[in-house]
């Protein structure tokens, strides 16, 4: 029973939901660019619609993570995550990701403010 549950959790966490999320986010960005260029929507509305797709996708990932973690809760806390996450960056650069992305985000926000 326990082994069966563990195998099911292993199967679930091996699903590539991250790639599906990246495709969704990419589609949202393409949509925003297309409707802005064609004049269907102003760029502020289109930009925020893309942001809705982004946060909605992140919410979906968080809910998936929560779902897998709930199933695996009697075994371990981190079964929703893969064993190893490889980031194609130098090791020293990883802690700098959040401040750099924050600065980029605030500049993009400034663009929509302006």
């Amino acid at each position, binding site marked *: 029973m326990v082994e069966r549950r563990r195998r099911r959790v292993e199967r679930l966490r091996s699903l590539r939901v991250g790639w599906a999320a990246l495709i969704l986010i990419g589609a949202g960005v393409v949509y925003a660019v297309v409707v802005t260029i064609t004049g269907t*929507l*102003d760029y*502020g*509305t289109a930009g*925020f*619609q893309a*942001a*809705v797709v982004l*946060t*909605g996708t*992140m*919410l979906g990932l*968080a*809910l998936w*993570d*929560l779902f897998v*973690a*709930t199933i*695996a*809760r*009697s*075994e*371990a*806390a*981190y079964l*929703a995550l893969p064993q*190893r996450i490889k980031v194609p960056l130098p*090791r020293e650069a*990883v*802690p700098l*990701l*959040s*401040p750099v992305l*924050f*600065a980029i985000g*605030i*500049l993009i926000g*400034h663009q*929509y*403010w*302006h």
Partner: protein
Amino acid sequence: MATNTGTEPALGFRGVLSIAFLGLAIGILLLVLIWTVTAAADPAAAGCHNAPLRMTRVPQLLGILICIAGFVLGRVTARPKIDSRSQVRSWVRDRNSTREHARAAVFVQACLAAALLFIACLIAFEAVTLNRGVWPITYYMRCASEAATWQTLAAAFAFCLLTGRWMWLPSTPKDVD
């Protein structure tokens, strides 16, 4: 319930600095909140245009720099509970009860999902109001910036300082692949 068997380390300079900056940020936010409530009740208080002006008394670049300065200051003055990911592993291994830790992790994940739901709703509201010509949330920020520029900048600085304290990634240990 897990118990802390070790003795708590003494609060050093870093700890005092961290608490002082946390108090500073919370103090600024509270002062701005009190000022906002007071100004809102005063008919003579400064208002803003409809739509609020994009250009204020100070250059926008200064606002961006203040926000980034707050974020960086929050980051360097924070006293992180965990310095590296290897500490997380040892911390988890040392716990007596996996089940208890898993329950806590599920709770944190549920809080993260709830926070993302809240943010997604706010951004959706922004997109809908922008599309329909109703004041979006950003207009209220712009109105505040127009009517009370320095107070708004102070609040933005304090908010970014708090963000900088909590939005960080622990360093990657050198002894693992």
